[in-house]
């Protein structure tokens, strides 16, 4: 007996779908008579859960179908509820909220579509099996990638909880961006004064090992036990000997633009970026070193090592925090003309303002070293702009205001203007901070700068004052771009090394933006700070505390439970041809023994192994070949001319959910079938729906290069190409099968894909 539980979700489903009719249908008209249906206002509530548990017991149900919201929403709740009465995997969901009620304006159509979705879930649920679990040991060490304020703070929190932390930083010192600022809003505290105690604490903490000039090059293993490879670039100065006395810097004949100072000042080839560097050691930058040997001669500690090689080493960690942060968008050679010496970024301004910086805190314009008379801040440079980034970088209104205020108070005669679209000052004390700026005489012009035209050393800013509807040509002698924040190169690199999913904006995607903001889809791997999105420092600190707590919970025991939702091999029919092992990027198939075996702890359950198995010997639990086929059968039995959309768990499915959240329109013929990865979709899955009358088939997969399982979507792409040709040869028409790439955040792309499919398959 299969129990179908249909949720009204208040009006969220009940307002769009005739839930009572749906319930009656499954009780009275559904072709199979082993189905009973129930409905309730809120299935996720205690009353709803009690109903499920009661019926499982009373009717001795073999499987449960939950027809409600997306499994990404309350899946865990239902799993736990059902797990109290039977194996926690003996249930299947039917997403009739995000993917039906909310995308189908016509109640009759929505009800019909819900029938098909539920029918698919019922038919799939017939093949569900008990899935067990196993406990695997965890390593208590933790890797933090990125030594910015988030990484440092989290490392300290974790160390305080007794964990050993490996802190890997790409630059020569930890500290990140914050230590390069002058002051921080809304308190105007000195950034260095606030962060140097943290730097010192990190440096001295016996439970924190710092790896500077280092990058993570490979991460293998499983949640609770990751094998991490780190490569440390040579410092060319022996860290054990260097006393950071500065003799080498003093004698170095080289002078080049300093990266630390964002090109606002000079540095030697051997240097330390700041006096508070951690580790407090000099380095030689071989990009600029001329190998004259001077430093070697003057170094009393004999620390110079010109021939140092990169070092590779490995570590075992139980969990990983990615805190690789942001960088500013580069607006050179655009209409912002950042290549002009007197057009500088906000961060460059910070370096000018820092008392220990190249100008000792004086605001001097780069072209001639003179104090500017009219300083103009250009807000939203590269943000909220479809040509660059559509998102708001969140911190620029405040950081521009902060700098304007500080400069104004030190230079009351200087004219300071801020051109903005609208001021976003949400935060405690922020609006007051902004009010004060206006009182101080800072000139806020509500208008987006459309172009900056160089005029010799000065600049003309074309802007329309939208209060007066007056086009202005503002003449400025120093322009500060409040450049938007983008994911740092390090963030992008780590995302591709560890295979984390990013959103359309390139920032790494949490498993749920609201309720799980620092968890990623991979258990044991977390994100925090500006790796996730642009945010101010206090939010980074909040993240760091949260993430430390999440990691500590994850690693609190000596072992963790892993559900065996893995692939299984039938040794009787396996011919040991090796294609599964070749497809497995996690080395989770042991081919050395007499029979092939899946290593349960290594298997990430993507199912790619099973798609090329010639003998059907390997299959993925929970999404078996036949379960997927049965689901399609169920859907098409109710609505034969549907369009089947296989959507990957990480991106496609999420995008479809988001389309629902946005109440977009999706043709009711579109029926989503959830798969863990687009790479799990077999040729049979692609062709079978046509045999049953489907109009079309599509795959909604992650963006290329962002497959959560590394290359599943690329494999799917190849397979779709072949299947399209095959459909042409058969005369079915290959154009009816398509693959769409989208990130988990791109609901509109799913809507567009669905629309396109409906057009194609008319």
């Amino acid at each position: 007996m299969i129990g179908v539980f249909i949720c009204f979700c208040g009006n969220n489903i009940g307002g769009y779908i005739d839930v009572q009719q749906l319930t009656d249908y499954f009780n009275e008209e559904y072709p199979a008579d082993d189905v009973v249906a129930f409905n309730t206002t809120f299935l996720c509530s205690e009353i709803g859960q009690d109903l499920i548990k009661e019926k499982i017991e009373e009717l001795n149900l073999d499987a449960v179908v939950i027809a409600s919201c997306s499994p990404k929403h309350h899946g865990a709740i239902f799993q736990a509820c059902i797990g109290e009465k039977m194996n926690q995997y003996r249930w299947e969901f039917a997403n009739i909220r995000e993917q039906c009620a909310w995308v189908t304006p016509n109640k009759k159509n929505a009800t019909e579509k819900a029938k098909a979705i539920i029918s698919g879930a019922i038919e799939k649920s017939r093949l569900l099996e008990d899935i067990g679990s196993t406990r695997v040991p965890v390593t208590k060490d933790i890797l933090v990638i990125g030594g910015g304020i988030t990484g440092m703070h989290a490392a300290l929190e974790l160390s305080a909880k007794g964990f050993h932390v490996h802190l890997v930083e790409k630059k020569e010192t930890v500290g990140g961006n914050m230590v390069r600022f002058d002051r921080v809003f809304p308190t105007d505290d000195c950034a260095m004064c606030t962060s140097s105690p943290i730097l010192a604490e990190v440096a001295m903490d016996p439970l924190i090992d710092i790896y500077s000039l280092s990058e993570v090059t490979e991460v293998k293993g499983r949640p609770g036990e990751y094998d991490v490879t780190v490569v440390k670039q040579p410092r060319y100065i022996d860290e054990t000997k260097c006393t950071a006395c500065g003799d080498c810097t003093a004698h170095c004949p080289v002078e080049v633009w300093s990266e630390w100072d964002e090109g606002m000042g000079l540095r030697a080839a051997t240097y330390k970026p700041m006096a508070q560097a951690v580790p407090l050691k000099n380095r030689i930058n071989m990009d600029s070193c001329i190998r004259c040997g001077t430093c070697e001669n003057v170094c009393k500690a004999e620390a110079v090592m010109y021939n140092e090689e990169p070092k590779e080493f490995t570590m075992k960690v139980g969990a990983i925090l990615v805190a690789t942060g942001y960088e500013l968008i580069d607006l050179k050679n655009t209409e912002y003309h950042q290549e002009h010496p007197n057009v500088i970024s906000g961060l460059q301004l910070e370096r000018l303002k820092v008392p220990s910086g190249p100008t000792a805190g004086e605001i001097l314009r780069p072209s001639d070293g003179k104090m500017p008379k009219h300083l103009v801040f250009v807000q939203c440079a590269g943000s909220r702009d479809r040509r660059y980034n559509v998102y708001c970088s969140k911190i620029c209104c405040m950081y521009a205001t902060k700098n304007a205020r500080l400069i104004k108070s030190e230079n009351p005669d200087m004219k300071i203007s801020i051109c903005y679209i609208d001021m976003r000052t949400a935060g405690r004390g922020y609006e007051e901070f902004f009010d004060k700026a206006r009182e101080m005489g800072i000139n806020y012009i509500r208008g987006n700068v459309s172009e900056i035209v160089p005029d010799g050393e000065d600049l003309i800013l074309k802007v329309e004052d939208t209060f007066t509807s007056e086009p202005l040509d503002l003449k400025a002698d120093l322009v500060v771009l409040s450049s938007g924040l983008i994911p740092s190169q390090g963030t992008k690199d780590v995302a591709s090394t560890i295979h984390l999913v990013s959103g359309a904006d390139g920032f790494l995607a949490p498993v749920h933006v609201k309720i799980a903001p620092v968890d990623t889809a991979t258990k044991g791997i977390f994100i925090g700070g500006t790796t996730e999105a642009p945010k101010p420092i206090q939010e980074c600190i909040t993240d760091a505390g949260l993430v430390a707590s999440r990691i500590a919970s994850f690693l609190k025991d000596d072992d963790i439970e892993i559900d065996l939702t893995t692939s299984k091999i039938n040794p009787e029919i396996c011919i040991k041809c090796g294609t599964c092992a070749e497809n497995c990027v996690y080395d989770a198939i042991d081919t050395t023994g007499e029979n092939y075996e899946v290593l349960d702890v290594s298997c990430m359950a993507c199912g790619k192994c099973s798609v090329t198995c010639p003998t059907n010997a390997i299959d993925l639990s929970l999404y078996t070949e036949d379960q997927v086929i049965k689901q399609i059968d169920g859907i098409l039995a109710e609505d034969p001319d549907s369009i089947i959309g296989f959507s990957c768990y990480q991106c496609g499915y999420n995008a479809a959910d988001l389309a629902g959240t946005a109440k977009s329109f999706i043709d009711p013929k579109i029926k989503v079938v959830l798969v863990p990865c687009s790479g799990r979709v077999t040729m049979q899955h692609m062709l079978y729906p046509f045999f049953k009358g489907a109009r079309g088939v599509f795959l909604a997969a992650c963006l290329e290069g962002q497959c959560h399982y590394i290359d599943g979507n690329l494999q799917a792409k190849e397979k779709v190409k072949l299947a399209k040709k095959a459909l042409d040869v058969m005369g079915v028409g290959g154009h009816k099968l398509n693959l769409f790439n989208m990130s988990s955040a791109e609901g509109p792309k799913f809507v567009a894909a669905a629309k396109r499919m409906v057009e194609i398959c008319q």
Partner: protein
Amino acid sequence: MPVEGAEKVQNEAAEYKAQSGENEMDQEANKTPKVEGCEFGDVVDCVTCKRCSLVCPTELDLERVVRIHRYIKDSYGQVKGSHRDVFRLASKLSGMADAQGWLTGIDEGDDIVFFPGCAALFDLLLQRDTNYSGNAKAAALTLNKLGYKPEIVYGCCGHDLYYSGALDEFELIKAENMEKLKGKKIVVSCAEGYHMFKNIYGLDVVGFEEFVLEHNPEFVNTDLKTTYHDPCRYGRYNEVYDAPREVLKKASDFREMENIREEAICCSVSAWMNCNKYSRDTRKKRLEEAKATGADYLVTACTKCSIHLDCIHFEKNSEDAEALEDIKILGTAQVVGYALGVYDPFKEEVDYIVPETAGKFLEPLKIQKNVDQYIDDELLDNAFLCTTCKNCTIVCPNHHDTASMMEEFRSELVKKDLGPEKHSKIAKAIMNTGNAFGEKEPMTPHPNEKAEYIYYPGCVANYRRDDVYQATKKILDLLDVDYEIPEGLVCCGSVLRRAGHEDEFQDIREKNTELLRGKKVICSCSGCYATLKKDYEGLDVYHITDIVKENIDKLPLKEVKKKVMYHDPCHLGRKFEYYDIPREIIEAVPGVELIAFEKEKENAQCCGAGGGVKSAKPDIANNLAKKKMDEAKEKGADMVVSACPFCELNLNDNCEEIPVVDILNLLMESLGEVKE
């Protein structure tokens, strides 16, 4: 029956078994069958290669049984092809839509019809980097070279649907194809298409090789070193053996493999059904055989054979793939095309183009499975012809358990009440009285609860062969074996299971298991022995000869001066590879001269009685027994000895001159216990 070659097949089987026997010498004797093979007995695992027809004593049409059986199982959704069934699916879709052209560069016209088949689809769906469709292209180009502008008809011949049980879908495809092909002369370059069009469609079809030979073109002999693999659909199905060889001889440096023509080993997959490790081993052996000829190319005339034989080459990190790397696979047309200068298999890329098709909306096929339409007298006749002797298993390329498959099929028929009346009567008798003969008396008990052993006499010894019953008891006493015969034992149910009365069998099994579990069970009947050991679960079962052999020294055997022949009971011999112990016991009797049947041990001919044939088709059982006894007469035997009272019954029924006795009777005679 095409027995030519049967002998060779048997010898080879014997060799194979001898080898596998050696490998497992250390295994406890008679515990595990030594033939490594596909023991599933599932109908999808039969390769329908007809190799078994070389040895089947009752000459039954297995291929037909398999097809219908698959149809029945398909209606339960239990037929799944390899590669996730995608090829059968493709066949069905091809039938639903209008298949599109993919051959390029062919001079087309309407002289004849060329049917290129499914190779392009296979190329695409296999996801291998291969060009199996090149064979069809070479064939089409060859036709041009011979002066023909063929009309090219695309589509699927339906072979895989026909042989995988999708008979309704096949009929739809057939009807569509018939419209396009009827009345035309068709050339095909694939053995499967040839077989289908010729025998199943009844069309005017000619094989590519034959067509080429008819036109006798000028070949430039290539220096390719080739050998030829007979596809079952050409060879055993249609006796097309020579044409492919002749073209290869003209076109290349040709040499023969060891197993050819009738005895050819199958590529070991049929209709994309049964790929598993056993079929893979068969393919490996086939490639090794090809390599041993010194050929570089294993050429075949069937796209599917090419694909399956090539499979091993695509294994990853495989020693076998490496070892067999240099024996490549080609199609006959590719070699011919090469020799005629119209096609280069070494340069030709996969170059078919596919016109993007509009593709109308496909209505799902409306198919109502109707098993009854395919069940006719001929099928029923064949279904109950099998003596479950397992001789087929010996020659089957995958050593597939055909007997179990037959039992399952019979159970399907019995469910529909289509089994022979005789069988139903026996089943009823067993259910009513506990024995196959319908005797009212229960099996004679021998109470002895503390005993270590149980003697399970079975129906024949208990009711019809008291001599065997008494002899067993006597010998057990002589050997100091403490035994009991529990009260309430019933027939072992062998005949029920063999004849397909599965529900009744399950009942019987439950009853007996309760009484037999936990003790060592001795059987004097091979049928009972096989059933208790293999069809029951969790019993510790011995044949009486096991016990005798262990303690033969304890028996004061006296001289019996007789020429004796030993008949291997199928259910003891082939089923458990139990050949030597009975022979050793016979030879332990002083004065006995043991003469061998011409076919013995794994090749032994069945007495004809097994599998319910004695009751349902007595003529056939009698004829086989007569044949066997004629040989005994010819060889001047004084006595035929066996270890199965049921075989002995049937053999005795069919020979008056020579007595057929149980091995225990012989021992009794030797012990001086024979009552005249």
